């Protein structure tokens, strides 16, 4: 191994991951600001920036706060200590939020109005008739579920639930005492946030937010008081689950306990309406023990995630992208069952361009097939009412051996997972609740089938979760194969997950946390050596995030040796691109489109005998060291070509792509004089082309040539 010189590891050459993440949210926001997009799609993107930011605070900011509390002063990859990061984050997110709301107020709202949709920002703007409607709605539907709370010496400050929207008020006794009292009421989450008002004569549709209706009727909640002022506010709490696994006897119980705790973590962010009464703000600040840096004064409605609900409103289809229907998979467009089709050759699935059904079908067929002995699967994030879970339950009923690894540590999905896990266990499945100290992030399904010529194993490996609803939004790749070597490895993976020793060797799969990091470094360094020896050397890698120091240093070194490196990274990127003497040969692009880019693809030139891998792991330390991840090679020429095509088109995209600049900002490429390429749109078209081609092949009339049957004699 060559010596890696100092500069590759110098913190100056790295970007803090949180700040890079904020850049990502900016890229999503830029979609919301793009006037070329259908209006409702822009609503969606704006909503996403808000929910992203929520999650960011709850997880990332929360753990930085923990570090500060714990007096943990080790600097990060870019040499920043936790408090420095928090300061910078606060600055950046405040900017981001003000851009969010200027987008909302100056661009989205007026355009909505132009399109016949009036959002009434303040209840004072309601017309008389609308006001009556709102009040009736309040009395009938809202009032019964409200729990107003006042604070005085006998009633302590109430606990405010994480992420809940509340209205704070200052009250004054009608009896005339001077003292102001604090009171609040939670905006009920059981009621829709958007309330549609009767259609006006002009045909314009009007909406108002629930909190406005409550504010309007605040007096009726505190009858003996005069309401001096009311303002909505929202609190975000520390939600990062830290479970002491060695201590936790039963992981399941422990997580249930933690879930309850999540409601009451330390407050880390307070959002209040702009121009909130100073007295009110002071009380909140004192009671929530929150610093000014963490207070966001918002110029508009709090929590923009309601825009996602607005996106769902009926009657505005002309303002939305035509919904895309995932296409059939040509290899499966026949009468044969899925096992026969897999035996004909490996099958590549490209979601959401192609349907996720075959994966569901795979498990379903296996559950019914009398020759199937066992089904084993890792489940990380499953959808509610998952058909896969249903199929697994059926398989257990059919006395097949069903082993499922349910990952309880999948962030924010714990509640969901626990229910499924219990159900599966009851049905007789062998359920493994994750591994101590590791998250199982790999996506693999193994079906063991007894056939004429012996045991045959069918394997599905993917880059995305077994979740049929996100499969409609996330771009992922999946491979179905009965290659015996992969089958053998898949069995070994499940044996390891069941607690047995590692296999004696692997044929094809590369598994984290033990082997994957070393393998990546080895392959990157192989390119470095090849470049140094004057051979062609090229790396293309597509992933969600890149922030592992060792990998980045290896990439810097490769770049310096002359390896051409093209990275397609959706989210965080701690690498600096195009820096002379460091990363001149590295180009980083990010695609933010209608679908969430999610596939991980790794291509290595390897001196003319290219290697291509798909996997579940990003180049992040947590993926490489703290998770069970699987990377698998794609060796079938046909499939290889298809994936290379995917990479090519993604690299050519100039509509949804941002390119990382030398100064760390992301810019869209100059499109002047160029054909516009939107890779996601192109993949949609291609997927239907494949289907049409297959239909043409199947339909004798399609070829427009009659094939005479000749005499056999």
């Amino acid at each position, binding site marked *: 191994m060559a010596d890696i010189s100092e500069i590759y590891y110098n913190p100056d050459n790295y970007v803090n991951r949180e700040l890079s993440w904020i850049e990502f949210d900016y890229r999503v926001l830029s979609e919301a600001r793009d006037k070329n997009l259908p209006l409702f799609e822009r609503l969606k993107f704006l909503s996403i920036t808000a929910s992203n930011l929520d999650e960011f605070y709850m997880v990332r900011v929360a753990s930085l706060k923990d570090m500060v509390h714990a007096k943990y002063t080790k600097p990060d990859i870019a040499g920043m200590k936790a408090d420095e990061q928090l300061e910078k984050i606060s600055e950046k997110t405040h900017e981001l939020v003000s851009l969010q709301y200027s987008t909302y107020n100056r661009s989205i709202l007026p355009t909505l109005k132009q399109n016949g949709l009036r959002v009434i920002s303040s209840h004072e703007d309601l017309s008389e008739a609308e006001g009556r409607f709102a009040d009736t709605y309040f009395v009938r539907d809202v009032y019964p579920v409200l729990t107003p709370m006042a604070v005085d010496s006998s009633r302590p400050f109430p606990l405010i639930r994480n992420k809940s929207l509340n209205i704070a008020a200052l009250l004054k006794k009608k009896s005339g005492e001077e003292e102001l009292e604090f009171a609040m009421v939670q905006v009920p989450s059981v009621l829709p946030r958007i309330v549609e008002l009767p259609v006006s004569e002009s045909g314009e549709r009007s909406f108002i937010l629930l909190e406005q209706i409550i504010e309007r009727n605040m007096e009726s909640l505190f009858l003996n008081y005069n309401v001096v002022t009311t303002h909505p506010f929202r609190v975000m709490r520390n939600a990062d689950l830290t479970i002491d696994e060695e201590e936790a006897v039963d992981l399941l119980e422990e997580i249930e306990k933690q879930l309850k705790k999540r409601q009451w973590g330390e407050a880390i962010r307070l959002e209040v309406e702009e121009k909130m009464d100073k007295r009110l703000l002071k009380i909140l600040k004192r009671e929530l023990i929150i610093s000014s840096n963490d207070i966001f004064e918002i110029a508009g409605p709090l929590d923009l995630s309601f825009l996602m609900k607005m996106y769902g409103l009926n009657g505005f289809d002309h303002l939305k992208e035509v919904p895309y229907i995932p296409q059939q998979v040509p290899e499966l467009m026949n009468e044969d069952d899925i096992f026969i089709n897999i035996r004909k050759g490996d099958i590549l699935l490209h979601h959401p361009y192609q349907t996720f059904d075959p994966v569901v079908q795979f498990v379903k067929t296996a559950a019914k097939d009398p020759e199937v*002995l066992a089904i084993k699967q890792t489940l990380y994030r499953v959808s509610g009412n998952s058909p896969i879970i249903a199929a697994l339950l059926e398989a257990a009923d059919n006395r097949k051996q069903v082993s499922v690894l349910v990952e309880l540590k999948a962030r924010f999905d714990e509640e969901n997972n626990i229910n499924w896990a219990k159900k599966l266990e009851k049905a007789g499945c062998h359920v493994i609740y994750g591994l101590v100290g590791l998250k199982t992030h790999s996506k693999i399904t193994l079906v063991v089938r007894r056939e004429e010529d*012996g*045991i045959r194993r069918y394997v599905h490996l993917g880059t995305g979760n077994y979740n049929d609803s996100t499969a409609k939004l996330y771009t992922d790749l999946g491979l179905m194969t009965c290659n015996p070597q992969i089958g053998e490895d898949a069995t070994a993976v499940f044996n390891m997950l069941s*607690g*047995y020793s*590692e296999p004696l060797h692997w044929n094809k799969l590369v*598994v984290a946390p033990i082997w994957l990091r070393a393998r990546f470094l080895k392959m990157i360094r192989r390119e470095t050596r090849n470049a140094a020896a004057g051979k062609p050397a090229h790396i293309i890698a597509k992933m969600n995030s890149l922030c592992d120091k060792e990998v980045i240093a290896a990439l810097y070194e490769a770049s310096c040796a002359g390896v051409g490196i093209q990275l397609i990274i959706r989210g965080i990127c701690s690498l600096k691109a195009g820096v002379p003497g460091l990363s001149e040969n590295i180009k980083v692009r990010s695609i933010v489109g209608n679908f969430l880019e999610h596939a991980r693809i790794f291509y290595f030139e390897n001196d003319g005998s290219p290697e291509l891998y798909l996997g579940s792991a990003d180049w992040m330390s947590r993926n490489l060291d703290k998770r069970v991840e699987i990377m698998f090679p794609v060796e079938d020429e046909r499939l290889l070509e298809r994936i290379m095509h995917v990479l090519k088109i993604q690299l050519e995209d100039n509509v949804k792509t941002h390119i990382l600049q030398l100064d760390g900002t992301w810019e869209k490429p100059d499109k002047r004089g160029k054909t516009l390429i939107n890779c996601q749109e192109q993949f949609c078209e291609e997927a239907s082309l494949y289907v049409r081609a297959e239909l043409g092949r199947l339909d004798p009339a399609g070829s427009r040539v009659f094939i005479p049957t000749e005499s056999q004699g």
Partner: protein
Amino acid sequence: MAIRLFAAIDVGSFELELGIYEISPKTGIRKIDHVRHVIALGRDTYKNGKIRYELVDEMCKVIEDFADIMKSYKITGYRAYATSALREAKNSQIVLDQIRVRTGIEVQIISNSEQRFISYKAIASKDAEFNKIIQKGTAIVDVGFGSMQVSLFDKDALISTQNLMLGVLRIREMMGDMQVSTQMLNTLIEEMVDNELNTFRKVYLRDREIKNLIGIGESILYLSRESHGGKPVEWITAEEFIIFYEKIKLMSLDQIQDRFGVNAEYAALLVPAAIIFKRVLELTRAEIFWIPGIRLCDSIAAEYAEEEKTVKFHHDFSEDILAASRNMAKRYKCHGPHTVSMEKYVLGIFDCMKKYHGMEKRERFLLQIAAILHACGKFISMRKPSESAYNIIMSTEIIGLSHMEREIIANVVRYNGLEFDYNRVQLNEELFRNTKGELSHEDITILIAKLTAILRLANSMDRSHKQKLSDSRMNVKEGKLVVTTSYEGDMTLEALSFNQKADFFEEIFGIRPVLRQKRRLS
């Protein structure tokens, strides 16, 4: 379906293993699943002589899981073998009982030679390489946790095998508490290994030329591993191995763990293993080292496949046993021509008596070996040759014979010279329970009696060691076994002896042997 699914369980000194195999005449033996669970039973046994309850409990849990896996594959048969850790544990019987009660799995303890034989079978199942390699002087070195085994080939037959108390775990345990540097420790281990190996070399290796070494056993499987989970090394030259040894000798335990993908406990065993192999390579001056990657589970499957006649081996294992027995007879200076005629006579008698004794091919084979070895006791003592022969046979391993078979032979040879007493036939009871013996004590006594009767009669036919009856013919007529010879000289000694032995023979088979000297009318 012509495909059988078979499960093999290895209750080893360091690990519990389960292998699931597909066995068919067409595709041979194919491993389809394999799980391992690390549990250091051997540490308890070698140190305290007993296995702790906690370990038994853990073992039962794992074996229960194994049973589930077996069920999920709908296997048609299984074998579960335990090796030295259980064999040597004082509480082995109760441990086996616990396993049976709690998991329903019958675990059998196999003797060392049985264990070595089946791994030898598994090597032989790799036909192509195996047949090629044994054309030149070859030794199989099997380093286990408790002991190691060196087996030597002469031409293409395995002729001798020795068990040395040099298991890696045993060495580690012996060195365990010593507070010395790693370097020092390695030197100590090397000395210990040399000491044992030198004796072996002096006695058994003297003028054999060893070109090839076949390495089997747990530890070499790890040593041969490639980093990053790649395919293991199969062939390596002696020089390459020495270079490799020099490298790992300097590695820290952490580095060993990383490089070979083992846990800390195991890592500590790899250097002793490498030392053993290195020293064997140096002592034998072998040039090529073959690591066929055989595990006990594979061996169990190979044995099953052969017994079920699903898979045929090209190598003739009975030839090995005969060659090994003859080699042994030579070592103890048995009279060559006498032994040859003995073989001929016993087989002659056996064959013509077939209808009356009801014994099969394997018994015939045991008889033949008894004939080969019948006189080896004289090497020790002329006064008590029978007892000495019994002891020699009981303490010499013959690869390919089960422990019970060896004990039968030893008894036949012993009663060749002693009065036979049905009630006094002593069997090493302890070894029998839970070994692969399927016969009851009584059946074995009768078998010993039958074989003894034939051996005695045959022995009397060459009383003078002069092969006077070498041209004799045998057949059974009217309830008599008639041995006819055309030898014309004096054979009083033979006739006298023959008559003495005839009584016992008649007692056993109900057939009276008669010796007739055909006189040519001049």
